[in-house]
């Protein structure tokens, strides 16, 4: 169970052999595959330890944490939601463990012949861009401003997956999304690199929560994520790693 009184054995320190109990990780939905994979490895390394994930949108996770959700680790898809948690005094010293940059996603075969950011201004194309309220939208705005392009989007997506879905279905000709999403989407989607994307790199911070029921395991898990092994897994999924 994910209830607060679940932390049966609290390990005193990061010494790997003594880890046990339950480790609860709140992680952004875009980390689902990577973290599930890392969690399994972590459990294998520490028999007796049970890793519980709660994947959802970063803002939902932040809201849950400020409402007193019992968690050990929070991995956010952006700095803003991590700030919500640190401002509430529930975590400190978040560390960036991955980063993501924008790419133009086009349907397989690139039917509209999109080659760069300038094409996003074409009125005849159906374009999806993230809404400015969400991280990828903020990033997109920065990138477009930097490139001096006034995009003509048909929809301001509320999350990057929604944009990608439309590309996969061939319903939009191009969408500004993250590289990781293009990677995850497989053959249905092709990525067009955007040089200006470097202007808006999106960092993924991770932190151990202040009143984590299982701080020992939490520290160990963050270590694993930031280790070479973790970095490799993240890179396989298309993330940049520090």
């Amino acid at each position, binding site marked *: 169970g994910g209830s607060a009184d679940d932390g049966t054995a609290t390990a005193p320190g990061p010494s790997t052999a003594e880890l046990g109990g339950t480790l609860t990780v709140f992680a952004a939905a875009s980390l689902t595959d990577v973290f599930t994979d890392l969690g399994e490895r972590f459990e294998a390394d520490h028999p007796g330890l049970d890793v519980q994930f709660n994947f959802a*949108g970063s*803002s939902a996770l932040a809201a849950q944490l400020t409402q007193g959700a019992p968690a050990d680790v929070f991995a956010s898809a952006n700095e803003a939601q991590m700030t919500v948690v640190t401002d509430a005094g529930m975590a400190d010293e978040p560390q960036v463990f991955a980063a993501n940059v924008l790419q133009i996603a086009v349907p397989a075969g690139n039917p509209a012949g999109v080659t760069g950011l300038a094409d996003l201004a074409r009125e005849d194309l*159906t374009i*999806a861009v993230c*809404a400015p309220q969400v991280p990828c939208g903020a990033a997109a705005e920065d990138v477009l401003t930097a490139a001096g392009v006034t995009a003509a989007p048909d*929809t301001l997506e509320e999350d990057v997956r*929604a944009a990608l879905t439309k590309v996969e*279905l*061939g319903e939009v000709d191009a969408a500004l999304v993250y590289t990781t999403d293009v990677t995850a989407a497989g053959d249905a989607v092709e990525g067009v690199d955007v040089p200006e994307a470097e202007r808006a790199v999106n960092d993924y911070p991770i932190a151990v929560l202040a009143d984590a029921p299982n701080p020992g395991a939490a520290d160990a898990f963050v270590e694993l994520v930031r280790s070479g092994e973790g970095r490799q897994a993240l890179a396989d999924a298309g993330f940049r790693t520090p």
Partner: protein
Amino acid sequence: MGTVRRRGREPGVPVPLLVPAVLAVAFLVLPLAGLVIRAPWGELGPQLTSPAVGQALRLSLVSATAATGLSLVLGVPLAWVLARSRARGRSVLRALVTVPLVLPPVVGGVALFLVLGRQGIVGRWLDQALDVTVPFTTTAVVIAETFVAMPFLVISVEGALRAADARFEDAAATLGADRWTTFRRVTLPLVAPGIAAGAVLCWARALGEFGATITFAGNFPGTTQTMPLAVYLALQQDPDAAIVLSLVLLVVSVATLLLLRDRWLTRAVR
């Protein structure tokens, strides 16, 4: 026997009904009260006067009403067929109709793309032959909301039709009314309370629709950004603003319902 009671036209609600009813109200109303208490009312002014909010609110009301209208036009006949016709395969049909109820709305949006999208079964033809594109338009919002909300109407109207006394339809037939006239002039008024209930459910569901809309219609202020989308986006940055927006949506919809229902009910009363 012989108990002397205080007089009154209202004999009171029996305790085994009163207790759960009060609990139900508490259950439904307390969270709302929480929201109202917690809401940063200072934000109300700026939010209400923001043109974006007005736009989203208007679009929400218009599209939910259009979706309800469409659902009434299509769904009431379907409910009738399910309740009255003896055609075989009716139970399969009924089960199929309930499908959009359980389909996660985002998947519903994907499904709509598969039919009405540029590459969709019907949409491809619309696109090429008529140069009509449905996705990312206000029409798409209405369609997405109808798809998600119509089953609510169909199921509750069917329940009402089933409970209605079909002998009045016999009487109408002996007076020369064919099934269509009977439907219009006898059946419909008889089940008016059920239809009103179904329409309220349908309208409310359409008004709150989020997943299918954002998927199939996208999110563009003024064209496809309804209140739930605005609320969701606000949640990403400023949860308090989102709560205020939700409350605005609530107040408007409750006010609308209050007005409408009282009109309907007084007309539908026996």
